[in-house]
């Protein structure tokens, strides 16, 4: 065949903060030939397009410039991630896409230099996440130009310097929505409103006033209008009223979904909640020697979390390379009950050990200071009261002190919010 056959020790798919973090730690720990494949012309992942500061400080959720100060800008963070990986000898190849599988740890690639088939002793998937586009959210109406996701908007403005419009409506109220608002204002647009179907704002009134645009809560987008250009967003409010916001630009933000296609094409077990690969506390997927890190596993955490996870996965990957991949005993699934949406990691191995001592969760609906109850086969393993309300699109956490109480031969462990 016309594919170049190659072998490496560790193949990292995706050169965002998670993949670069994994490669840096692995190359530094003597994992052998560690190669990162990044389909874009530049590595660094999503932070490359986030011009605001606040990166590099773990777990602060800085998706916009309006958060606390500190850290570096997105592009600087991206460059730092690249430098850290390349500096210790990881091989970074950009403009090379992994297009499919040809074996349990063999992938097919396309790049300007041709086609390859690369076999690795360990594969680390770090393909990230995207926002659901308008179509996938089933928002009815017309389909004219002027409809964006934050990802497309930030690239259009920050990478290509494209002109966007004059009046924008931002849909969503997760941190990334505020990132979109920053980008829009930086590009000179007026923000007509930020719209969320959630009943209450997670932001304190003070911050909202500072933001300088109305936040419409409890409002559902019922239709987009406009023929040659988007001209309006129709809303239905909680009290049944309908209104139309005039605008020439709409940005759909948040509603993240993992970039999981490669994982699915590879036949990896997918978690019903996260829609990323099911994985255990050692970043192991359902296939031996295939690991996963970053927002592919939980869309979406901030860049610091992704990078830290990347580094943390080096230990289990090294263990795998040494031939001690699978612990003895079955994996126990970890599941959530609605309105909780997902938990990550979501499989528990007998040797479970969390790299940062906690699980991350999402809820589908606001819950005021819930109790999280962990149980297995009707047996309560743990109960914990959260000190703050939990909100859709925002992470909250569960400690891991109960892990040793799991029956490794029991059925799924459940997390319920009361």
């Amino acid at each position, binding site marked *: 065949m*016309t*594919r170049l056959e190659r072998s490496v020790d560790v193949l990292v798919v995706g050169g965002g903060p998670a993949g670069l973090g994994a490669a840096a730690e692995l190359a530094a720990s003597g994992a052998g030939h560690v190669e990162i494949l990044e*389909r874009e012309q530049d590595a660094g992942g999503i932070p490359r397009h986030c011009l605001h500061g606040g990166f590099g400080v773990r777990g602060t959720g800085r998706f916009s410039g309006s958060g606390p100060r500190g850290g570096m800008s997105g592009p600087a963070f991206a460059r730092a991630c690249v430098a850290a990986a390349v500096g210790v000898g990881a091989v970074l190849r950009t*403009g090379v*896409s992994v*297009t499919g599988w040809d074996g349990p740890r063999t992938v097919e690639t*396309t*790049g*300007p*230099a*041709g*086609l390859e088939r690369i076999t690795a002793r360990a594969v680390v998937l770090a393909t990230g996440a*995207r*926002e*659901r*586009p*308008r*179509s*996938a959210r*089933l928002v*009815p*109406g*017309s*389909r004219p*130009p002027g409809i*964006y*996701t934050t*990802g*497309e908007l930030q*690239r*259009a403005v920050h*990478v*290509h310097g*494209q002109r966007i419009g004059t009046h924008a409506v931002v849909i969503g109220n997760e941190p990334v929505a505020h990132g979109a608002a920053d980008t829009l204002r930086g590009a000179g647009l007026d923000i007509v409103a930020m719209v969320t179907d959630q009943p209450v704002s997670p932001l304190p009134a003070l911050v909202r006033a500072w933001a300088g645009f109305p936040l419409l809560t409890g409002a559902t987008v*019922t*239709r987009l209008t406009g*023929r040659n250009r988007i001209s309006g967003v129709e809303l239905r409010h909680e009290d049944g009223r309908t209104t139309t916001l005039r605008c020439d630009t709409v940005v759909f933000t948040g509603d993240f*979904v993992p970039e999981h*296609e490669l994982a*699915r*094409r590879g036949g990896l077990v997918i978690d019903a909640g996260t829609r990323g690969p099911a994985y255990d506390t050692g970043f192991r997927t359902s296939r031996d020697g295939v690991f996963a890190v970053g927002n592919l596993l939980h869309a979406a955490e901030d860049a610091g979390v992704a990078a830290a996870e990347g580094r943390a996965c080096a230990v289990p990957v090294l263990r795998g390379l040494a031939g001690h991949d699978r612990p003895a005993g079955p994996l126990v699934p970890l599941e959530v009950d609605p309105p909780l949406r997902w938990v990550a990691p979501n499989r528990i191995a007998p040797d479970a050990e969390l790299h940062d001592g906690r699980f991350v969760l999402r809820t589908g609906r606001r819950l005021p200071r819930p109790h999280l109850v962990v149980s297995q086969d009707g047996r309560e393993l743990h109960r914990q009261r959260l000190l703050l309300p939990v909100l859709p699109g925002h992470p909250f956490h569960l400690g891991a002190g109960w892990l040793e109480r799991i029956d490794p031969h029991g059925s799924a462990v459940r997390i319920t919010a009361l």
Partner: protein
Amino acid sequence: MTVTITRAGEPIGSGAADDDYDVTVVGAGVVGTAIARELARYRLRTALVEASHDIGNGTSKANTAILHTGFDADPDSLEARLVREGRHLLAAYAAESGIPVERVGALLIAWDEEQLALLPKLLAKAERNGYHAARMLGAGELAAREPHLGPGALGALEIPDESIICPWSTPLAYATQAVRAGVHLHLDCRVRHIADAGGSHLLTTSRGPLRTRYLVNAAGLHADEIDRHFGHDGFTVTPRRGQLIVFDKLARELVGHILLPVPTAAGKGVLVAPTVFGNVLLGPTSEEIDDKSATDSTADGIDFLREKGRRILPALLDEEITAVYAGLRAATGREDYRIQEYPALRYVAVGGIRSTGLTASMAIGAHVTGLLAGTGLELGAPRALPPVDLPNVGEAFPRPYRRADLIAEDPAYGTLVCHCEQVTLGEIRDALHSTIPPGSPDGLRRRTRAGSGRCQGFTCGAAVRALYEEARP
């Protein structure tokens, strides 16, 4: 021959008598381009005028993309004959022109006893339509063929020749061949008025006057308006909207065939079908509306489709949705095409090409050319057109990103721009410099698939737009 394509701001000709076109086709949808292509085989001065900035930008861009066998048509209709002829013509043409086609076959499924009882009648109708390959499948065989079907399917009629086709490459191939053979294509050119100028028609267009001896009206949804310029009141086009949902490629393995419902008086019903791009379609709805521009989707339409889809293929509903769109069928109140020649007026109306126009397009082209000859147009001897070879955008054949030979020659074919659809820089560049370059980023998408994938431009939208803007004259 030099290619003549004009756009807004450019002259279309002086309108003087020695500039008269022999024939002008109004409307560059799949029907108008097919007619223009057929006319290109003769030594005629032919114009194709189109109101939009691109060809194939009306109903022809938004359909279900099935190459029908016509097994269920009304056997005595003109439509039945042209669909029957057209599907063979187009299948052969597609193979030589690089238009993706896959013969996946259809299963017309009975979900209750009443529907089951109708299958033999449909089989007999297929026979009357000259289609002899249809056969009945029992519930067991049906389940084996389509393991993901919802519960309750009792049996099916198999129509092995129903195929899926690329709806965008088809008019593009026709139009490309036509303009290369000397047909003038005038875009951004809406026909506003038609007057008799003694032996020729004087068209008033949004870009100035244009004179032509013969006129073909292939204006789709607006064919009735063009027809009225001749004082006719023969038919009125009432748009019948069809909304569709496109599911992501990971859904493709859930379905092997085109899954048809048993047709009712209300129409052909909601189907599930693979696409040549490897997606799965669910639709269309069938809604009588009065606005010829209302290609909007609606909450009711989407809910209705999802409910139907859940019944047909429950697992489909768990897959990500890539796109929702709507097309408008040019219904005229009669269940047949309205193709009518008017010798005294040197005019042929091609109206009411409702829901099979893609399939029948080449046969319509030949039929209309015959009618023009019958009304007195001297055709002369036909010549063979040099073949077109469109870049492959279908999944059934190797796409450029998998072709080591192409990449070795030009690394641009190894540089992916749209990652969801695996569209390379080389393909985008080729489309931007092709015989009929796209008139918008959307036109570029229809030619290459760039931006039509699951992320809808999250990753590549800005880059594709930049490439489009860069290539603009």
